[in-house]
């Protein structure tokens, strides 16, 4: 049995777009076992993906805060992180696909180790290098975005596996979340004609929806009811939003 670890820590949208890669890997190795590393805040979203052996979450935000403020000694930090990563190392993955394009996860991928490492990994001096041409292409996408012909979904699937059958984006909504959503829509005001769901958060604060623009949008949608699907990045908007017409719901209810 082949084992693959996918590292996709920082972005909720990218996580959903990992679905076709999972299908492609199963096409490549029908008995493959796929594990996924995500930030703890994205674990509920990761649970919507089909065909994973396990979702391994970690509170990377807390880790960042602990490292930055030196609230723990480096030996304590090493011990905690090593303990967490020990099962990943012990699994002896055949392939690690790092879809998080930062230095930290590159070093994590190299630390866990596998014969086939893809995406950002650590070079001989610890600096980042990118393995796999499709993922290299993706790394530089911001430079040639206007010429780009590929969708993120395809880049992930090609980079993490290879060519294969078309596979649409899909998630599996758990029964309790489905029941919650149906109940929510049924119990709401009958005068509502149209619902708009918005993901207000972003992985990077500079890309996040500014509260003032959010407020302007709400003002324009004043006659409608909005339901806002948010991740942790939308806290600033929650604090500034007081309109009763807006409801904040986390993914999966």
């Amino acid at each position, binding site marked *: 049995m082949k084992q693959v670890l996918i590292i996709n820590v920082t972005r909720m949208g990218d996580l959903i777009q990992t679905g076709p890669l999972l299908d492609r890997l199963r096409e490549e190795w029908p008995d493959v076992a796929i594990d996924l590393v995500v930030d703890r805040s994205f674990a509920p979203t990761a649970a919507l993906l089909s065909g994973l052996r396990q979702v391994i979450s970690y509170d*990377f935000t807390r*880790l*960042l*805060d*602990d*490292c*930055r*403020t*030196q*609230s*723990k*000694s*480096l*030996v304590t*930090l*090493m*011990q905690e*992180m*090593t303990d967490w*990563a020990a099962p990943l190392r012990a699994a002896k993955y055949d392939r690690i696909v790092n879809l998080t394009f*930062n*230095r*930290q996860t590159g*070093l*994590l991928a*190299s*630390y866990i*180790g596998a014969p086939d490492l893809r995406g950002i990994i*650590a*070079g*001989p*001096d*610890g600096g980042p290098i990118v393995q796999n041409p499709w993922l290299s292409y993706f790394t530089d996408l911001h430079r040639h975005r206007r010429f780009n012909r590929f969708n993120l979904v395809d880049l992930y699937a090609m980079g993490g596996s290879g060519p294969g059958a078309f596979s649409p984006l899909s998630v599996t909504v758990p029964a309790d979340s489905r029941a919650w959503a149906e109940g929510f829509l049924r119990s709401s005001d009958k005068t509502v004609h149209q619902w708009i769901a918005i993901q207000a958060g972003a992985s*990077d*604060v*500079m890309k996040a929806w500014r509260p003032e623009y959010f407020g302007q949008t709400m003002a324009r949608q004043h006659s409608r009811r909005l339901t806002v699907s948010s991740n942790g990045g939308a806290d600033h908007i929650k604090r500034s939003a007081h309109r009763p017409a807006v409801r904040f719901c986390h993914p999966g209810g």
Partner: protein
Amino acid sequence: MEIVQARAGMPSARAKGRWIHSAYDPIKEAQAWAESQSYHEGETLVVFGVGLLYHVEALCARLTRTVPVVLVVPDLSVLADAATVRTWGDWIDRVSWAWGTTEAIGERIAEAGHPLRLITYAPAAALHADSHQAIETAMQRRAAAQAGGQLRIAVVGPIYGGSLPITRYAISALESLGHDVRWLDHSVHATSYHQLESLKNSQHRLALQSKYAEMLSRVTMAQLAEDPPDLVLSLAQAPLILPALEHLRRKKFLTAMWFVENYRHLTYWQQLAAGYDFWFVIQQEPCIAALKQAGAKDVRYLPMAADPAVHRPLELTQTEREEYGSDVSFVGAGYANRREIFPRLLCRDWTFKLWGNEWDGATELISVLQRNGARIDTDTCQKVFNASAVNLNLHSWAGTGLDPEGDFVNPRTFELAACGAFQLTDRRTLMPGLFAETEMVTVSSPDELMGKIARWLREPEQRVAMAAQARRRVLAEHTYVHRMRDLLSQIGVTSPDRIGSILRGARQAEALALTATDSFPSLAATLRTFPSTQRVELKQLAAQIRSRGPMGTLSREDLMVLMLDEYRSETKDLV
């Protein structure tokens, strides 16, 4: 204590009309209390508050048997009450008892092992608040004496004002204690800030000053993000607004404020109380209670002080003596009470010189006002202190006469004493805890002032002796070094796993290497390449690894260190 049966059937207790344990279910209440206490492996728990020991039993039940628990017993009779009405279980064998004098209790606690985490069962501890305070102080002193580790401290100063020189003194003291201090100096923005004061429209002026302070708060955040410290220490008037402080707390920064202001006059603390992790104030009750009421979690008394490098005896030339000297002098701003009292000092048998600014309109005092009421710099101030026979030190007040609520002791008191200058000051309720009557002369009313000036002018030798005694007291107990040591040891005792561990030297290369030897042998070897007492964090260790260059080989441990260091250097979520 009065023993009363709780609704659930077991004994509970009351004292002075207050319940020590729940009137309904003391066991359940104690369990909830025990659950709320934090503990880190390797620490010794020191419990304040005896009562009927339900909370100690619950604590023992929550923790593994190896965790040392020391119960402070300031009064054995309380323990007798508990022994009479309760039956002990096995847990009692796990508890070490510390009783006797403050020193004996301190010794017993010290024997139990370090690091110490103090926890307080407040309803019972309140019965012996003074004893507990004395024991805690003794423990802090002990911790301070053992401190050898270097902290990285960012000091956030004001844009301008009286707390600006105090910021400098605090920084100098922290540096002399061996800490790595970075001054986030906002005094460089003073000119721009004062420029806004020229706006005639008060609405515009206030709005823009507020925006300016908010901008400086963001500047502070950006500076902190570039080099996160172990502790952010603000002095009064530091431009850090509540949302910034809340953000810092979310990001795990530790913050402290030394509020060197009269809390009755400047009330902006009400908006900031909940923002800082630690407050240090120059007043005691009701100031401390008011801050806690406003949301401050940890408030402690930390009086003003002097810096002996600045405030010191000077050898003055004859010319300087003539320029700065007089029989009686005062240096300070023209507050209402001083404007009312000082005219009485005119036309007497002594010479009187008045130094300082904000005396506009005090026409009666023009004949004694020096330099046309210009602001007096620190050097000049020291010369006046040294050259005057009797230095008046009347604390500011907006009313007439002396401040009837006068409690805190101002910086001038300590500075005059450090100069070895004789002073005559108004009576303050907190003065007896800082200076003895043999060290300075106090007056209780303006009427006493004339007689005491006349008397002490006649006794130059006694003046010199008294001033020398006051100086010795300052050097022994009241310098900024003493204050900063107290401040850090108090924070260290409250956070033994963080500031406390750094102060104890647990982050130094040799100490880290010892803890890493078993689990991370190659890391321990790298740590041993540093000087043994050098503090080593991810930054230093990662730099050491990177210095091997591209030809070096990275072990898995190296990769982990570099990964953690990459997280350490992340800043974009901070500002």
